């Protein structure tokens, strides 16, 4: 894919957007950490902090609009993701879930905010780190709650299965808990943001390229832009959904580690 773009794309004619479009050069020469995604992460933390400090500072019994907005996000995470999924011990995990949800949500929505328009999570390293946090937290919680041996036993030997089946089930269960879960968690978020951004690039850049063509192509280009705008709204939905799903899965994994029957 990359070599294809390098050979064919970069001359005159249309350059189809590809994975190379995500490698933004650093804006300070020679400083490889001064890139747009890192700047956006800092920006998101600042924005989230300011929003929730402002929303909670003048907390009143009759909430202002800002307080209501802040509280509805919080109560959504606490009730729908914490209490519904984790159960009676949920309050310990609400800070983590809430941070995760708002952080991912804001960083995703950067993908469609004009002038910013780059979803931070389309760089794979950020989802990796978030998934690593979740991975260590749910294993730590499980080991803390049940002890290392009992926790491993619970992972490896599901109850109620005939003995020979363990030859098949145990490796699968181990792979699920230690490989598949963190991998899918990070790749799902990454690939959604990556694909979404690529989709928008295709239609917007394609529309722009059509504008430079002959008159017939110029007439088609508004349709490309219209689809681009429609997909922007679709992307907004996907971005919210992915933030929700990442947090939901984190809550489910924690809940799974906390289960103490058998």
């Amino acid at each position, binding site marked *: 894919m990359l070599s294809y773009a390098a050979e064919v794309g970069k001359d005159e004619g249309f350059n189809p957007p590809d994975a190379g479009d995500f490698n933004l050069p650093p804006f300070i020469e020679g400083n490889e950490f001064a890139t747009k995604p890192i700047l956006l992460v800092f920006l998101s933390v600042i924005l989230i902090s300011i929003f929730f400090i402002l929303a909670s500072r003048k907390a009143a019994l009759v909430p202002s609009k800002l307080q209501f907005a802040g509280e509805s996000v919080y109560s959504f995470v606490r009730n729908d993701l914490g209490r519904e999924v984790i159960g009676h011990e949920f309050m310990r995990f609400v800070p983590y879930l809430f941070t995760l949800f708002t952080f991912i949500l804001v960083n995703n929505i950067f993908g469609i905010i004009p002038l910013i328009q780059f979803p931070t999570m389309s760089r794979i390293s950020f989802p990796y780190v978030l998934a690593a946090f979740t991975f260590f937290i749910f294993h730590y919680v499980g080991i803390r709650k049940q002890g290392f041996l009992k926790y491993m036993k619970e992972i490896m030997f599901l109850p109620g299965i005939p003995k020979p089946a363990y030859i098949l089930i145990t490796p699968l269960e181990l792979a699920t808990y230690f490989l598949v879960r963190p991998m*899918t968690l990070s790749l799902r978020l990454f690939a959604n943001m990556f*694909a979404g951004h690529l989709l928008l690039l295709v239609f917007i850049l394609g529309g722009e390229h059509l504008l430079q063509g002959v008159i017939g192509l110029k007439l088609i280009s508004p349709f490309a832009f219209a689809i681009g705008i429609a997909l922007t709204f679709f992307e907004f939905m996907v971005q919210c959904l992915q933030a929700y*799903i990442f947090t939901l*899965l984190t809550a*489910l994994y924690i809940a799974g580690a906390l289960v103490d029957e058998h």
Partner: protein
Amino acid sequence: MKDKEEGKVRNMEGTLNLVGFGLAAIGPGIATGLIFAAYINGVARQPEARSVLQPIAFLGFALAEALALFGLVLAFVL
């Protein structure tokens, strides 16, 4: 167009990965449809079960969708 004047046929370039990804996306596409069909059916029959069904539906959707997205990632990586 230039190539046509010179009497040549331009070779098609690119990668079959993306065709493979298109084929691989069929399965998760059907799966996602089935999951939401079941969810809509459940809510239509028993609207008060919505809050119970919603996380399950989205979880199933996320798991099915992950397969398609692995295909996408691999289409770019390989």
